[in-house]
């Protein structure tokens, strides 16, 4: 497939999910609202009791925002919503067969979903990150502000965690074929099953296979400020990369296989 057609197919897939109003609104709400609430509540607390509550901005609050968007519930949820929409949109609308009868390979139809989902997911996440930066500086008062390297590393971490989850969501939902089923399963994994498995000591080194644990390895924040805190497993950078790449490869392969072999 030539690059022109690849770009056009990416554009078409991006159009489909960008115009899905419900998904986009939920993604924006989940990404932006927690950041807004976090700074507004912090500012109110500080203004009402300055001696008890520090200003709402500064490095410490910026790091909390990074956790909201990268490691905790909200960023991953945005990634799951958008990834699942990209993975199941054609099937849910009944349009997949109309794309197949163009003669274009099913692998190409699957492949174009991935960059489209990533583009929208990252656009929403970057918007939330910029909002977090604005709040960090606007409410910093006399507190220290994050260094440029912390800002860029944090942005990279947030994009990495949401990007990986978004791609996994595209692959998983293409495999399952059901939008609600995929969303429920991925959220259950992200919020319940993953942390639960990571906390079972008897599983030993196998726990390093949990995606969250590997992703947390790339966090620019100190381990005690990360999502997992003391439960974070130590692993080498190489192991973390292998785990993350493994998850991507497995779910992309499964999604592509299902897209290629299913009755349309």
């Amino acid at each position, binding site marked *: 497939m030539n690059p022109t057609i690849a770009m056009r197919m990416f554009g078409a897939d991006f159009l*489909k999910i960008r115009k899905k109003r419900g998904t986009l609104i939920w993604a924006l709400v989940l990404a932006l609202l927690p950041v807004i609430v976090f700074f507004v509540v912090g500012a109110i607390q500080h203004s009402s009791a300055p001696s008890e509550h520090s200003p709402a901005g500064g490095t410490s609050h910026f790091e909390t925002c990074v956790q909201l968007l990268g490691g905790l519930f909200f960023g991953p949820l945005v990634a799951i919503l958008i990834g699942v929409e990209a993975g199941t*949109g054609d099937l849910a*609308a009944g349009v997949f067969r*109309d794309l197949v*009868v163009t*003669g274009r390979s099913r692998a190409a139809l699957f492949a174009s979903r991935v960059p489209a989902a990533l583009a929208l997911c990252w656009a929403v996440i970057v918007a939330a990150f910029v909002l977090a930066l604005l709040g960090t500086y606007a409410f910093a008062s006399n507190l220290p502000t994050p260094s440029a390297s912390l800002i860029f590393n944090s942005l990279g971490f947030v994009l990495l965690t949401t990007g990986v989850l978004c791609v996994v969501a595209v692959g998983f939902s293409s495999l399952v074929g059901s939008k609600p089923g995929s969303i429920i399963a991925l959220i259950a994994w992200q919020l319940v099953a993953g942390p639960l498995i990571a906390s079972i000591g008897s599983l030993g080194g196998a726990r390093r296979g949990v995606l969250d644990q590997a992703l947390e390895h790339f966090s620019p924040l100190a381990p005690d400020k990360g999502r997992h805190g003391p439960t974070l497993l130590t692993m080498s950078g190489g192991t973390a990369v292998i785990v993350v790449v493994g998850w991507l490869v497995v779910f992309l392969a499964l999604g592509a296989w299902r897209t290629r072999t299913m*009755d349309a």
Partner: protein
Amino acid sequence: MSSADLSGSGLAIETNGLTKRFGERTALDGIDLRVPRGSAFGFLGPNGAGKTTIIRTLLGLTAADAGTMHVLGHAVPQERAQALQRVGAIVEEPRFHMHLTGRENLRIVAAVRGPEADARIDPALARVGLSERADQKVKSYSMGMRQRLGVARCLLADPLLLILDEPTNGLDPGGIQEFREMIRAMVEQEGRTVFVSSHLLDEVEKTCDAAAIVDRGKIITQGTIADLAGGGAARHELIVGVDDPDRALGVLGASEIVLESHRSDEGLRVVLAGEPQSAAQVNALLVNAGIGVARLEPVRHSLEQRFLEITSRLDADLVPEEVKA
């Protein structure tokens, strides 16, 4: 209507021994189908006969278990991409992204087809009369408009072959008439081949040049509409009203131009051995024998009669012996 020569080499669709099974059930049982280029071809059969399954198999939506297929001269699935490059299809009802406009839905398919398809969006919308509603969301469209948008989507391929699965389902009488005219125009003015599956006999008879009748996964017969209606080779029959039926039967029975003659409720039913022009010879024969001829009317065979004959014969074949007894 353009003529459809099923023996010619210019076939838009050709299948040999095409077989598809779903578990124990055989949905397609050794289908040998020949669809001539430049014709409207009806694929006629009752619900559940296997019409949609063959369309899905031809388009690569589901895999065949046995047999070979050629679409526009390309082997499928080996050369599926080339085969489908100039094929437009509506399988079952046309489906769209409801949250997008008609034009956006076409843009999505055009992106998948290739850059040249973009330039066909506006002409395709105009061709189906949707230019003015193209920028409204599809969820606001009526069923008829969605059908037309489905055809517009097919036209993005500048198709040599259109495959339409039950295209008039859900359309009102006006919409059905419009659709028929569109199909005929595509065949007669634009030289496209249109393959229409339908369970509606009237639909196929009024729209198509040739047809295949399918039932229980098998093609029962195929040919031009006239041939099918006549029962294989063209069959010409007359209803003859005479003043002396007994003597007329004797005269006709002795003639070489008459294959068969018998009484019926309407008069004498005469099957001609040759061309329909020999009706004049029948008239002359009777008049020369001194028999008064009050009526001489060609029998118009309908596809419906033929279809009912075939399917009732099939039903009879399937009745267990003990029940027949």
